[in-house]
């Protein structure tokens, strides 16, 4: 029996309390008739709908079991739902520890692009290094991720702008992260579910919209804050003319950190002066644009070689270097805000595309030289290490 957090409504409950939904199969029923649909009140409430949502009957049974017969029709079902919101949980979700990772950042910081590339890297290069596997857990994620990956890698199209949560419900992307662990003489697989929330930049611009639409931050096990360095004045000045598509300045990153910190404190009923123990990974994106501002041979421009374990020394040096640059770019405002609000934090630098998007008539496309991500996995691996999913190299 394990504690589960619903990835949709964030209710916490033991796996035994999981409920089942009847499949309403027409075959093999006890009565010869499939169960009729019912108005699902909790699901209707979750979706915020005036019109009722109809679905298969939900019934209680021992949630630890993978499958159980419907008490009405007798057909065996394996579809388990959250007892709170009645959303269908992916198969296997109840049997592994879930980790919710919130991905936040201002508009145009590249969150959607980063998410797509990160998963691709975890599945391929990083997976190879850690002997791990990452795969989607539910149909919704599969369709969404496949669409994004196809458009990005096959068609060279950057992901569409993420619509604000105010226009539509934000569903998480659910992945299963499986790692082969060698302990004593045995090799075992350890799985953990990863729940990524991709947030629209618009939702983080004000405290009001953040509180209304990004409330899952308070339930996250780790937060990755993507910071567009082009939002800093000195960087914009230094790169003026070199960057074809200079974004408008939006909400300052330290303001976003403050908003997030206050939201989490409010949700967790914490005092204003307390530091939060949620790990916060602050990652500078688009680092491929920064060589003019970096030292020659900067670690920020080369990928780390983890080789089955997290290279903490490398990350520490990256952290130091980013802190130093931030001191120059915003006089340490972001660093100080992070240190003030989060007890566990680290600074990273990455580039999802590895180059500046190509601007065509029909929109932005992937760089002409192809997608060559720089350190996209570092924030996630740091979080994985804190979660205890991967080990770190010993430092000498």
């Amino acid at each position, binding site marked *: 029996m394990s504690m589960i957090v619903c990835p949709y409504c964030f209710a916490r409950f033991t796996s035994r309390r999981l409920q089942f939904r009847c499949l309403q199969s027409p075959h093999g029923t006890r009565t010869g008739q499939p169960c009729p649909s019912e108005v699902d009140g909790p699901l209707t409430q979750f979706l915020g709908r005036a019109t009722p949502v109809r679905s298969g009957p939900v019934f209680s049974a021992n949630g630890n079991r993978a499958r159980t017969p419907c008490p009405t029709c007798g057909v065996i079902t394996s579809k388990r739902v959250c007892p709170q919101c009645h959303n269908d949980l992916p198969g296997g979700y109840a049997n592994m520890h879930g980790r919710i990772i919130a991905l936040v950042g201002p508009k145009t910081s590249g969150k959607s692009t980063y998410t797509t590339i990160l998963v691709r890297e975890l599945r391929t290069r990083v997976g190879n290094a850690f002997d791990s596997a990452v795969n989607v857990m539910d149909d919704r994620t599969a369709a969404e991720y496949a669409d994004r990956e196809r458009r990005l890698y096959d068609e060279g199209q950057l992901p569409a702008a993420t619509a604000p949560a105010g226009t539509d419900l934000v569903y998480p992307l659910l992945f299963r992260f499986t790692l082969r662990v060698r302990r004593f003489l045995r090799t075992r697989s350890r799985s953990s579910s990863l729940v990524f929330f991709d947030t629209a930049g618009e939702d983080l611009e004000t405290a009001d919209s953040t509180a209304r639409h990004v409330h899952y931050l308070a339930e996250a096990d780790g937060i990755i804050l993507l910071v567009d360095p082009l939002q800093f004045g000195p960087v914009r000045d230094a790169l003026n003319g070199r960057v074809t598509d200079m974004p408008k300045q939006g909400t300052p990153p330290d303001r976003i950190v403050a908003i997030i910190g206050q939201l989490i404190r409010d949700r967790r009923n914490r005092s204003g002066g307390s530091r939060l123990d949620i790990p916060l990974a602050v990652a500078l994106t688009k680092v491929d644009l920064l060589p003019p501002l970096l030292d020659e041979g900067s670690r920020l421009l080369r990928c780390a070689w983890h080789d089955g374990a997290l290279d903490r020394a490398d990350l520490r040096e990256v952290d130091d270097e980013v802190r130093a640059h931030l001191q120059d770019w915003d006089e340490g405002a972001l660093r100080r805000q992070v240190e003030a609000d989060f007890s566990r934090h680290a600074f990273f630098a990455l580039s999802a595309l590895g180059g500046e998007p190509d601007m065509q008539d029909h*929109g932005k496309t992937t760089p002409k030289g192809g997608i060559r991500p720089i350190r996209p996995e570092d924030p996630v691996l740091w979080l994985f290490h804190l979660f205890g999913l991967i080990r770190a190299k010993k430092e000498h």
Partner: protein
Amino acid sequence: MAIQEFHYTSAESGLRGSPGFQFVKAPADADPSVLRQVESLVAYEPPRSAPARPTAEDLERMPVSLSYSRLPDGSAVLCNTTYTGLDYSGRSGNFYAHALYLSEGPQALGMQAVEAWRSPSWQHSADEPPRAGPALQPGPVMTTARAQAFCADRHARLACFLSDVLRGFDPGDGKQVIVVEDEADDVAMWLYVACASLPAALAERLTFTTYTRRPYLSPHAVIGISPDADFSFSYAEIAHHYRVHHLDPDRSSPADPLEWAEIAAEVWRACRIDLFSSAYGWLPDPGVVDSGYVDELTGVLATAAAAHGLWLPARGVVSAVTWATSRTGQDAERFWGGLMETAVRRHEDIPLALLGAMCQAASRAGETGTGSLVAVLVSRLVAAVTEEEPDGGTTRWLLARLRAEPELARVVAARTRSGLDRVLSGPLPVARVLWLARLAEALGLEDTLLSTGERILGPALLHGPETDAVAEYLAEHADRHLRDRVLDYLNEVATHEPEVLLAALPGSSPVALWLATADLTGRSVLIVTLDLVRARAEGTAGDNVTAFQRVMTALRSEPNVLPAGAVIDLAIKVVWNGTPVSVREAAELVHLVRVPETVRESGLWALCLALLANSGALDRDVTGLAQSLRQIAARDRSSREEPLVVLIAVTGRLNGVTTLADLCEAVSLLGRQPPIPQKLRVAAEETLLGWYLDPLRLREWSQRLADELGCLARYGGRRLIGEYVRHARERLSREVRKSAELLACCFALWWPETDGGADDWSEARQVLLADVLAPAVKKLGEERLVTAGDRIHRQRREMYPEWRHWLDQQRTRGRRLGLPWLIYKKSP
């Protein structure tokens, strides 16, 4: 303001002040909550199959999302969202939503929401200049002609779609309708058709979106999606959660069309969508759409369609008639004319009871020209009478109408005669025949009924539960010829089965009352029978024999008198009516009739024989009847005497005047064991042997006794002689031991050999002497034996020596046999 406009897109600047998705235009005084509600309704995602780098033409072809939403406070939001591709920063995924917030509800639009499809009033980018004129103009696409062409193309799915839309209003069981089309224009057309088919009040409540990629999140009642939408088309979703309409039938929900929808589809097929508004004109807002409202909707639409001559499925015709019939005096009058024509044309689809109710309702409504409908009703009633009972209310009304309108009756009669003839020639329950008879009478077709007189009405008058109804009908309505047929039938019954008639004629029954007033001339048997019934009811009929004489007198006085035997037989049946004739009554009847031939022909002879056979005892009445019959038989030289009659007549009255011939005949009959009942035979034997062995008679010393015994010896046979011996042992053994005279008489009777006697008798007399008389010798004593010897010497001197000899034999027989006793006597 009743209408507020909002524009939402991803822009570099807008009302929020920073780049990104936001409202770019909105009223300055817009409520923030309204902004949030509108924002939640504008989302757009292009289809997954959309090209990654859409050209301008591609963008034109992107599905447009026209969504219409109702908010809990009664306000509505109509939003037109188009995909614009790139946003200000060159990223794809941008859309432009132009929303109208209708704070006071959709009435402010002045048209159906779906008519705003492709409206020129919609803005598709923030760069377009503001329009002048009204807030919203109807689009050019939504025309009746296009809708009709669309329905003709999708007719197979139309009824199912409309059904699901209407069911969607059911708060308890309504499901969202998902329409899968390649083009959002087709979804919009579906919606246009649905809104045009529904009452305006419902159409205003029908929320929809012409396109969304994520139908699971759509709150609308009708959701348009493209085939590649995020919808899994699982069995549970198709069969249970939603009502899915896909071009591929395998991906559609099972069809379950409502009758209303089938009618609506026919209205579309007939290109008469004006009928929708015409039909729904007076319908109020239903509030809750329940089955009652759906029935109402079905009825009124069916009525309007039928009244305008549209072809409808059978149940649609029924619904129309049902609806119109139940609303006489309300708004249904405007449909009556056309509806009646349709009813005449499609009458076979309308249940008979409903057709009747419709006729009545139309008449009540003062409709003229109901004659054709009445004619159809009569034809249907006549044709159906073999299978179902006509409705009482309808038939009463119909008969009254036909009687009141002779011209109508004449027209209907011409169309009904053959059908009436046909059904009346077959078997029918009486109640239905009566109804048909009344109908025929009302139509002036009485001649068709004549065959039913003796075949149905006559028997029904005598049997069954409809007797009173038939009598009442005959008394009040029936045609004279029909009555004659029935009376003839009754006379026949009275002649051949009078008991049947009598059973049906208790004095105060409707049948009797009708017959009392009917003209019975020439039906003599019926008259006599009724007269007897009446006399009995009045208590003047006397006993049965008296009544018999009365009936006989009456029957013989009728001009068409029956043969004598038949008259007697009939009289017996009439008088006794199934009750048994007693032996005494039978004897009296025989005396009354006298004539042997008549007695035999009438069945009286057989009746008497049966009575004798069943009598069992030879009492006075039985013997008297047998003697009467014997006298009748004696006069009838042509016939042979019945053994039964002879035996009873002789043995029942044995006395001194009984001739030796009769006695011999009786003995002979018993000796031959005639085929007469055992009980009667035993009684006769008992009587006969009692006569033979009567001690008083035995003491008479008459020659007659010897003659009688000779008769027994010659004709009695072994069995009867054996019985004689047995009776003699039982009756005389004790008497003989007490009476020397009886001993002497018996010896004189039994000792001599009888002339012509059989060997059986020789053996019997030896047994009688040994077993009856010999024991008495030892008991009587010497003195009384001497007395007996003197008696024999005096009466039969010639037998005295034999007596002495026999007596000595009896005296010595014991000694010879009693050797032990002898030894005892001689011993010292």
